[in-house]
């Protein structure tokens, strides 16, 4: 998968969980919780959705590593392999 594919997958799941977010307006360094108002339940749902879509299992201790779009793309890229 290319970075663009991963970005698209991540934003797709994010905006499915939080349709109030406009995918085009998400900046690479916007913090999901602080800037985009994703709460912890949304976050858990996002982790589950990413697992289903990309087959990547994200342990709790890695949650900070997907806290922004830029971080998440890097992290997922390494894990998709």
């Amino acid at each position, binding site marked *: 998968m290319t970075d663009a594919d991963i970005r698209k997958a991540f934003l797709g799941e994010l905006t499915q969980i*939080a*349709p109030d*977010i406009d995918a085009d307006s998400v900046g690479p360094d916007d913090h999901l*919780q602080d800037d985009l108002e*994703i*709460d*912890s*339940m949304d976050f858990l749902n996002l982790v589950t959705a990413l697992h289903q879509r990309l087959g990547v299992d994200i342990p709790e201790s890695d949650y900070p590593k997907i806290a922004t779009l830029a971080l998440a793309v890097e992290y997922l890229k390494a894990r998709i392999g």
Partner: protein
Amino acid sequence: MTWPIIFKDVFTRAAANLTDQVRAAFTWEQARATLDGLPDGGLNIAHEALDRHVAAGHGGQVAIRWLGKDNDRRDLTYAELSADAARFANVLAQHGLAPGARVYALMGRVPELYAAALGTLKAGMTFTPLFAAFGPEPIKARMEIGEGNVLVTTAALYRKKVASWIRDLPSLRLILILDDAPAPEGCVALRPAMAAASDQFETAMTTADDMALIHFTSGTTGRPKGAVHVHGAVIAHAATGRFALDLKPGDIYWCTADPGWVTGTSYGIISPLVNRVTMIVDEAEFDLERWYGILQNEKVQVWYTAPTAIRMLMRAGKKAAQGYDFSHLRFLASVGEPLNPEGVLWGQEVFGHPFHDNWWQTETGGIMIANTADMDIRPGSMGRPLPGIEAGIVAQEGDSLRNCKPGEIGELALRPGWPSLMRAYLHEKARYDKCFVDGWYLSGDLAMQDKDGVFWFVGRADDLIKSSGHLIGPFEVESALIEHEAVAEAAVIGIPDETAGEVVKAYVALNPGFEVSAELERSIRGFARKKLGAAVAPREIVFRKQLPKTRSGKIMRRLLKARELGLPEGDISTLEADEK
């Protein structure tokens, strides 16, 4: 399955603040006597929380150890927090505000929030915290009902959630903005104003019966209710912190609740300061390693948290907690919704102490029923009434109430008379009066009491939803949904969720001309999130051609819930139009 009782040893019992002797000797008069009071019999929460400790020589003790999101940190001593509260009170006074004014705070967990709360109380004004994750609608409704005069918030929250409507609020007098940058037009920058203000302010001569706090809580029908609490509530905040949380002066204490909710005010500001502990305040949201790190590095002794957080820790497994030193922990407590027995025991296994579940609600102002430090714990139970609290289980019989037998499920009721009982629902006397029957305050919660006198929570008697420990009124959510152009009718229920306890689910019937689609589902859900905020908006929306209704046109949420859960449908004699 039955869970083993967790027994306390003799040393633990002897070290507890609450022992059988203390229980036997307790009176509310005596509890009041542990406080300073003001001359001529007055009482003020801010004086008890700050000024009396400074006067007694404890001004140098750290009151708040603040941990910023970006790993910056700041210690505020009792003397410094007292001075900041005085500055905040002076800023209010300089803008012509007088005792009785209503001050609302909408911000995250930053040091100024605490100065604002205590400064407002010191000035004899009324403080109302709002949850920063609320959307514009819940904020607006709460400020309208409470006729807010002052809003303290950040520039970002102001722009996003407040600016578009607040100028239409007739009661509004002042908007204080926290950020360092110049405040938006018509607002006052708080930090420069505080820096220029005097750190001396003579505490308003409030009495125990003067209004101090308004906490909003959701109703099944109608708008949110503003529960009014008085300065006298501090007597209960002091005593219950000692008894139910085992707070001792000098303890390091961490309450993870946000002050936007009643727990974060009663036990995240007032009770700990009155009991002269050092509070840990973490600005960031839940994060597994951060939380374990705080417990270890800050040497937390007493920890008060919530089932949702405990379950999130449990999801990560015991292994994630290995390698941390939790040896400073002495007492763990949980509130918000019943903690499942697995969670109670998990505390024992991972931290060396069980979680002590306790029960109270916005209306009671403080903890009423608790598993305390000296008690053996029956995992999953609420515990026993605290000293000064009489609780019972009652059922309607004709026009009056009868006491239920041990093991029989009924409504949990309390004998009025404790100091932190709400004194009114703002502008809603009829709703308030309905809470009191035959000399009992009716909680709206169903419970039972076993043969040993221990209370067990069963559920809500009404349609309110408890999600991540927060009470959500279906009516408030439904009202926002039907503002969407496609929505004709909406019904909202809570469905069980492993982590949050319950999550909000909406059933929606569409207006003519709108077709069911995944896109429309997202549009409605996004609309609701924008209006209500993520914590309150539905996580799931399903479409129906028609919602089940009674003859009088009332939507039967109970029936939707029973069907959702595969439970018996109960009495459906009033059902007129069924779900399609």
